[in-house]
């Protein structure tokens, strides 16, 4: 066989094994394991939540909900599946449910992108521009794909599976999004 052997996961096997171990401990009621899982995965979960809810405050709230749900349902995690994928699927479902609920209460007009939390969090000017300005220049799905790729280290194929999109769509959106961001940050000649 000439073809290259590949792992089927986004993360180094070691990290994946550790996350899996943490989930099993969470399933057994270990609170320290939940705390560690939270520390290791919170930015990924938050990033995905932000891409759906579009504002920092709601995304922070929802991130907390995700871990409460993980605590309640960890036993349903199948140790054959990707732990990060499982975590993010929960996050995605909660986001979609919340958006549906809001749709019912009030037909919200297209919500503005607002990624800077109200409380001080030590962002420098460059980071603010990137988070607020550059990401605002993207369409919803482009933003989601870029965030997932940047924060979770997932492969495009895995992002496609999580978001239920075809792989070529994810790839083209990803490249278009990065180009748009570069244009925003560096001007038109960035092409």
């Amino acid at each position, binding site marked *: 066989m000439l073809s290259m*052997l590949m792992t089927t996961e986004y993360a180094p096997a070691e990290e994946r094994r550790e996350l899996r171990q943490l989930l099993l401990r969470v399933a*057994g009621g270990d609170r320290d394991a939940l705390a560690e899982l939270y520390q290791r995965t919170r930015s990924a979960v938050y990033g995905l939540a932000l891409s759906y809810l579009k504002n*920092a405050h709601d995304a922070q709230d929802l991130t*907390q909900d995700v871990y409460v749900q993980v605590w*309640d349902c960890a*036993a349903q995690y199948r140790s054959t599946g990707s732990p990060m994928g499982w975590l993010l699927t929960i996050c995605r479902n909660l986001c979609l*449910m919340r958006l549906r609920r809001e749709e*019912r209460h009030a037909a919200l007009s297209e919500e503005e992108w607002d990624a800077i939390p109200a409380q001080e969090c030590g*962002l420098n000017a460059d980071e603010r521009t990137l988070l607020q300005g550059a990401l605002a220049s993207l369409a919803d799905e482009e933003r989601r794909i870029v965030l997932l790729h940047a924060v979770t280290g997932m492969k495009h194929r895995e992002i496609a599976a999580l978001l239920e999109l075809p792989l070529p769509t994810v790839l083209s959106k990803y490249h278009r999004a990065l180009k748009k961001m570069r244009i925003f940050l560096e001007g038109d000649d960035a092409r």
Partner: protein
Amino acid sequence: MTNEKMEQRLAAALEKTAPDDVSGVLSRCEARKGTVINMKTKKTTKRSWTSLIAACLAVMLLGGGLFYQRANAVASVVSLDVNPSIELKVNRSEKVLVCTPLNEDAKAILADMSNGADLKGAKLDVAVNAIVGSLVRNGYLDSISSAIMISVEDKDAARAEKLQRELTSAVDGVLQTSEAKAAVLTQTLTQDAAREQQARENNISTGKAALVNRVLALNATLKFDALAKLSVEELKDLAEAGAPAMPIGKDAAAYAAEQYAGTTALDSVTAEVDPELDESPAHYEVELHTAWGEFEYLVDAYTGKVLSGQKDLLAAASTPNATTKPAAPSEAAQNIGHAKAKSIALNHAGVSENEAYDMEIELDDEDGTLVYEVEFKSGGMEYSYEINAASGAILKHEAEIDD
């Protein structure tokens, strides 16, 4: 700036803005929900008294005025049953008057809606949507074989039919957008005082009582109160199988598996039980989640005998490679099946079913162990898996570029 650098900066910025409140999360994680679905139907004689008093009070309050009376008159009773049983009383304009959790599981489902009080005054479809959402979130509708039953009870058969249709499509909608795969069962009922009495005595909905009666009609030697403790999925399958005998129930099945595995003394072991009463032989599929892996047991649904699975896990865990050993000698006929083997492989590969093509699944005998060989292609890659046909454990997996 390179793409990579830009992504790194983005990750750093998100790291700063992501919430960092472990104690906030932990403070909300007090009550541990069991994974074995309990059907606690505490029989309290008090309950009927309190509801009688409540009913009297309600009648007194309703005496206030004709208009008030009409808006608050119960036109239909809708019940949702999975394992949690929830009853909604609705007026003529489909507004919820009361939402009642009928068992302990239902209370957990309604916990973040103030035990159902938040749903008062809501339109029925909104309330049902919220409840189904919570059922999904709590993992009740995950498995492909789980079932939710919607029963509508109304004197007016036409109105019951109409409500039924609306609710079914609302529930279908929620299930489609989430990853739940449960079946939706529906029935319309006319009011029946005797059934209401039975339902109240067993803390179940009248809808579930009707299902129990259907099973009883097939086998009169079974007991109403024992059947009332089964889930909708079990009752449905039992009815379809002709109700040959009384199933042991999920709790007993989990216990039988744990005893067989020798893990009853370990608190860290949790069990997930999936009834397969429609298969032959009828059985419960019990998955034990342990610190050293996941093990599957098949427990005969009527006798409680363990049909397959690995015995004495503690002894086996100390020897390396325990999980890849053949599980038990007696399971020639017991295996996870093509569909399960396929989903295990797809799940592991992180590929959804509609992205996979050239799927080939074969059952093969490898040195006395039955294995499923699953091969498929997706996204320019070729995947091949060997899966233990009894335990579902992945024995070997490979992914290579498809050329």
